[in-house]
């Protein structure tokens, strides 16, 4: 099944209902379908085989996703926050392609071989051009719907492949068609290049819930938009929630229209969710766990789970507030040991999932097993009632505020510093960001210049990738095969942090 059919069905059922709001513009389901078809008609005549999107959230984003679907070309949103050189390198990998680029970002990407740049303003003109709006689309049978570049352990992003069949399976098995009341509106603040940004569009459209876009996130704007647009539903990453709560606490907004707030994309510190439940007692909370490779959510801790856990005196029930809930009924989930044996409740291992929505595939590399099981690379365990507790990535990618940070990249930069002999970078639990970057350094001369090393990293990478916790040692722990034991350091520093 094609993702474009999701939009066709919605437009067929509720043509006049508002589908998307961005800035001061709102368009109906019918208009969304007309624009997507118009852009699709233009796109199918272009040489580029992939439709890239480099820009902020807005009405154009869902138009572009469905335009790609109608034209039978994969949609690849890129992270505009990357450094210019990294962004250009990613863009070059999409060639031959057509790239919709925010007008003020064009300068960064000019002259990328094999890439036809389309300023966003021109894309909007195409959507409104009567010739394209009246054009007939050739039938097509596309396979790949979306390509999402995710940070891997090596630092060079991998292109996760999501086929139409995976995404539509996810949507039709988790969302009731046009199940939303007309007044419902979902505030979307996750960026376009995040799986939650993609799934928000598909589930929102199929469910008939208006999407309201924030161009980019600030807590003040989020709270302001939630009130002004009478937002009923929203999804945030844990870091956002803490900052939103700060604003609500400071200014006393009640957000009376807000019915449901879902969160995911990283470890939610228990103190934050407890504060949220106390500050917004009328709101239902949903914790969603999923991966890019699984077309978004695979497990949900629902509103009732939150209430029961919060009010329980049984520690086993109470701690479920820190779980990601139970697997979706439409898929299977197991915990396995390194030899692949399925583990019983209470034992930690690697989380495996299987189901129609599970893609488990990268460009040129299939990561799913022949029997359909996908190893998530996340560590976790199930309790007796089937609640899943996720402990973090099996490998060492740091997830700071929803952003995946590869330790290797930071280590490489630090190793280039003249005073650094050896270094290990890893994440430490952090109540604001989920995790923060820590570095343990061995210097050549015994110096301990935190400030100088931090400035060194900041000058070469972004500030989010600059270590916030530093420790200095005479040597680092390695195993007998020469593999750095980051985990050992992480355990030591986490313990030291608790004592402090």
């Amino acid at each position, binding site marked *: 099944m094609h993702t474009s059919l999701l939009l*066709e069905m919605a437009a067929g059922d509720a043509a006049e209902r508002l589908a998307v709001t961005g800035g001061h513009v709102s368009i109906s389901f019918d208009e969304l379908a007309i624009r997507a078809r118009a852009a699709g008609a233009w796109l199918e005549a272009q040489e580029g085989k992939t439709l890239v999107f480099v820009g902020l959230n807005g009405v154009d984003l869902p138009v572009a996703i469905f335009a790609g679907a109608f034209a039978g070309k994969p949609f690849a949103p890129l992270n505009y926050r990357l450094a210019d050189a990294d962004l250009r390198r990613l863009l070059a990998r999409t060639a031959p392609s057509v790239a919709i680029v925010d007008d003020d970002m064009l300068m960064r990407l000019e002259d990328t071989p094999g890439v036809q740049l389309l300023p966003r303003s021109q894309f909007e003109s195409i959507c409104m051009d009567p010739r394209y709006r009246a054009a007939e689309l050739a039938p097509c049978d596309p396979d790949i719907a979306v390509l999402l570049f995710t940070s891997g352990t090596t630092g060079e992003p991998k292109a996760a492949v999501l086929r139409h069949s995976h995404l539509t399976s996810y949507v039709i098995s988790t969302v009731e068609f046009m199940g939303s009341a007309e007044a419902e509106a979902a505030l979307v603040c996750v960026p376009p290049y995040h799986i939650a940004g993609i799934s*928000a569009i598909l589930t929102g459209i199929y469910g008939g819930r208006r999407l309201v876009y924030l161009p980019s996130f600030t807590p003040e704007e989020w709270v302001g938009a939630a009130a002004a647009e009478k937002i009923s539903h929203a999804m945030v990453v844990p870091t956002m929630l803490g900052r939103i709560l700060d604003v609500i606490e400071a200014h006393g907004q009640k957000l009376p229209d807000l019915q449901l707030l879902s969160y995911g994309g990283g470890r939610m510190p228990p103190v934050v969710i407890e504060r949220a439940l106390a500050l917004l007692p009328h709101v239902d909370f949903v914790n969603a766990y999923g991966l890019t490779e699984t077309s*978004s*959510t695979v497990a949900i801790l629902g509103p009732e789970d939150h209430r029961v856990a919060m009010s329980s005196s049984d520690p086993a029930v109470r701690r479920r507030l820190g779980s990601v809930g139970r697997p979706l009924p439409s898929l299977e989930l197991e915990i396995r040991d390194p030899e692949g044996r399925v583990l019983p409740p209470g034992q930690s291992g690697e989380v495996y999932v299987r189901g129609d929505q599970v893609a488990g595939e990268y460009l040129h590399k299939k990561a799913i097993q022949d029997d359909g099981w996908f190893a998530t690379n996340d560590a976790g365990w199930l309790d007796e009632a089937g609640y899943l507790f996720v402990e973090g990535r099996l490998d060492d990618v740091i997830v700071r505020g929803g952003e995946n940070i590869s330790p290797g990249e930071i280590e490489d930069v630090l190793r280039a510093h003249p005073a650094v002999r050896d270094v290990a970078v890893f994440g430490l639990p952090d109540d604001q960001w989920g995790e923060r970057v820590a570095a343990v350094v061995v210097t050549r001369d015994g110096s301990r210049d935190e400030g100088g090393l931090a400035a060194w990293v900041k000058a070469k990478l972004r500030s989010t990738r600059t270590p916030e916790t530093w420790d200095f040692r005479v040597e680092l722990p390695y195993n007998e095969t020469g593999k750095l034991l980051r985990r050992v350091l992480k355990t030591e520093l986490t313990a030291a942090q608790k004592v402090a």
Partner: protein
Amino acid sequence: MELKPGSRWKSAVCAAEVVVVRPAKTSVTLECGGQPMVALGTTVPEGAALAPELAAGVSAGKRYFDAESGLEVLGSKAGKGTLAVGGKPLALKEAKALPASD
């Protein structure tokens, strides 16, 4: 009729359209209102009429399945006919509503 996943079919006797979500394990004929459905985009045979006893209707967004063959389809456009395989009506798949997570 090859009911491949993702293939789209329309009723010969009403407005209903469906998309195949899960293929049948055996070769089956998908009918609506008593008549075989036709591939979307092909011509509907003339003169076919809705059988009055097979007018339970198709709803957009509802899933229908045949337990025996494993065939599952999604209603993509509503219509009056009853979906069936070899004269046996398909069952409505009851899905538990999940809280919004995106």
